[in-house]
């Protein structure tokens, strides 16, 4: 058989690209806000060239073959960039699917007198493009996962600041839910800071924790016990009435922990146990007075 | 899917081997850039299990593997002995249960320190305990 799909497409490369660009640009979902037309064209051109160039030398049905890796690399690169730029899966999918449409359209125009051949070659193109779509989606999702992972790390980092409120007193406000991973980070940061500052009292403020169930309570108890092992004391503050209620209703025993309603009263307790005194300046003196 | 990247077998017969094994585990954990806390947890769990193996199984072997799953790397340890085996694993996994005079924290405690834990035992044939800790898990 003399028909050569690769050669045909190579000849029609320009046509394919134009058709594809037309498809893409006419699509309502085109994200001109995220990608410029020039960039879109250069991405598309690169991909078409590499696919067409590869068709001649590689097995269309086997994407695992080494020779396909340049195509997959280009496609993967595009998918990952799109995931990071905030394209939706549908928009990313359209990118590949509209190429398939363009390829099939060209094929249909070129093979006019042999329906069997047209069918055979269309199936080939279909199969290839379907496999490439799968690759695109896999990479797209991987890109999104990376974004999520990075954000998770960032949140974990910014959400556990350890504050030195006084010489020897640390405070750690917890905002959001306390799961086991977060507890781990809280404990690590707190204990490390205790060592570095030589602090003997740590205040864990849970005003920003929406709810305390038995699991969260367990995490709190763990943190307190670990602090104690280091030779420092840990006070839990910011306990709202609702939290006190649920704690008792759930039968959680917090009796081994020093708890205070507010950060202020925890601080007062800390001052007392460090034998520090904070007093108001007497009214008839104008200059500052320490004490 | 979890792939095994390297394997190393260590015989444990004397109590001095406990420290030796801990050092080997540490080397491997450092190599895959495991954080200090996770290292400490892994080595402590290994220490508990190797002691168990010496006390109840008359020693045995420990297989140290570096494993990977996608972008995660981890350390997998498999402790096998030909000791008397454990009749009731459920009971052995409970906190504070011990047939010896230890604290009974070895098995349940180790499980809490790692990401994956598996125990198989047959009375009269021996016990195999597998633990796995991911570098950032």
């Amino acid at each position, binding site marked *: 058989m003399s028909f050569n799909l690769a050669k045909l497409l190579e000849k029609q490369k320009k046509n394919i690209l134009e058709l594809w660009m037309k498809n893409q640009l006419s699509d309502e979902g085109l994200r001109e806000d995220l990608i410029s037309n020039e960039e879109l064209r250069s991405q598309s051109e690169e991909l078409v060239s590499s696919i067409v160039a590869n068709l001649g030398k590689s097995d269309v049905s086997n994407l695992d073959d080494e020779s396909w890796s340049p195509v997959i690399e280009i496609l993967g690169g595009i998918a990952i960039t799109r995931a990071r730029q905030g394209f939706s899966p549908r928009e990313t999918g359209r990118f590949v699917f509209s190429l398939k449409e363009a390829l099939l359209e060209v094929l249909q125009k070129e093979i006019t007198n042999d329906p069997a051949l047209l069918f055979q070659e269309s199936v080939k193109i279909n199969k290839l493009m379907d496999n490439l779509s799968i690759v695109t989606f896999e990479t797209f999702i991987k890109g999104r996962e990376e974004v999520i992972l990075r954000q998770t790390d960032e949140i974990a980092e910014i959400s556990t600041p350890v504050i030195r409120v006084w010489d020897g007193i640390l405070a750690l406000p917890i905002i959001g839910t306390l799961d086991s991973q977060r507890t*781990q980070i809280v*404990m*690590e940061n707190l*204990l*490390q800071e*205790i*060592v570095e500052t*030589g602090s*003997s009292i740590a205040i864990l403020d849970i005003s920003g924790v929406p709810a305390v169930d038995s699991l969260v309570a367990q995490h709190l108890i*763990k943190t307190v*016990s*670990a*602090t*104690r*092992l*280091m*030779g*420092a004391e840990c006070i839990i503050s910011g306990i709202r009435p609702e939290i006190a209620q649920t704690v008792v209703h759930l039968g959680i025993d917090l009796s081994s922990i020093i708890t205070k309603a507010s950060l202020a009263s925890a601080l007062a307790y800390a001052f007392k146990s460090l034998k520090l005194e904070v007093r108001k300046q007497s009214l008839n003196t104008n200059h500052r007075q320490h004490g | 899917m979890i792939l095994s990247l390297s394997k190393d077998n260590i015989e444990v017969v004397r*109590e*001095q081997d*406990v*420290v030796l094994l*801990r050092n080997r585990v540490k080397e491997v954990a450092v190599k895959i850039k495991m954080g*200090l*806390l996770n*290292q*400490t*947890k892994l*080595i*402590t769990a290994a*220490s*508990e299990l190797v*002691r168990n193996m010496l006390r109840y199984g008359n020693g045995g072997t420990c297989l140290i593997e570096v494993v990977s799953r996608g972008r995660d790397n981890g350390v997998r340890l498999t402790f096998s002995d030909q000791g008397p085996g454990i009749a009731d694993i459920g009971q052995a996994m409970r*906190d504070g249960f011990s047939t010896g005079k*230890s*604290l009974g*924290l*070895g098995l*349940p*405690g*180790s499980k*809490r*320190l790692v990401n994956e834990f598996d125990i198989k035992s047959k009375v009269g044939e021996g016990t195999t305990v597998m633990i796995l800790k991911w570098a950032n898990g």
Partner: protein
Amino acid sequence: MGNFLLVTIQVDLYDRLALNLEADLVQMVNKTGAKGVLIDISAVSIVDSFMGRIIGNIASMSKILDAETVVVGMQPAVAITLIELGLPLKGVQTALNVERGMDLLKTMIDESPIEDEQEYPEDDPFAQ
């Protein structure tokens, strides 16, 4: 160190060494009449349940011999691991470092001068 004993553990102990330490230390408490024992574990990177039990034992045994034990300098990773393992070392006093440990021991044995301590050891109730 006056009436305190300071023990610094420098290496990861294997079992027999740890048991020896337990025996030696209790002997020393008895021989010197020390009122306090400081165990510095800042150089110890792994404390498993065996090691934890030895520390607990030393504390309990010293207590019977009328001496207080304070464990100082535990590393953060060790503390977190012990808690996860289920070994909070209840009954063992802790302090951040040797200096703080000494302060704690002093308050625990009521800050009395040595002579006083030795004159009325039985009548002296613990302050805390």
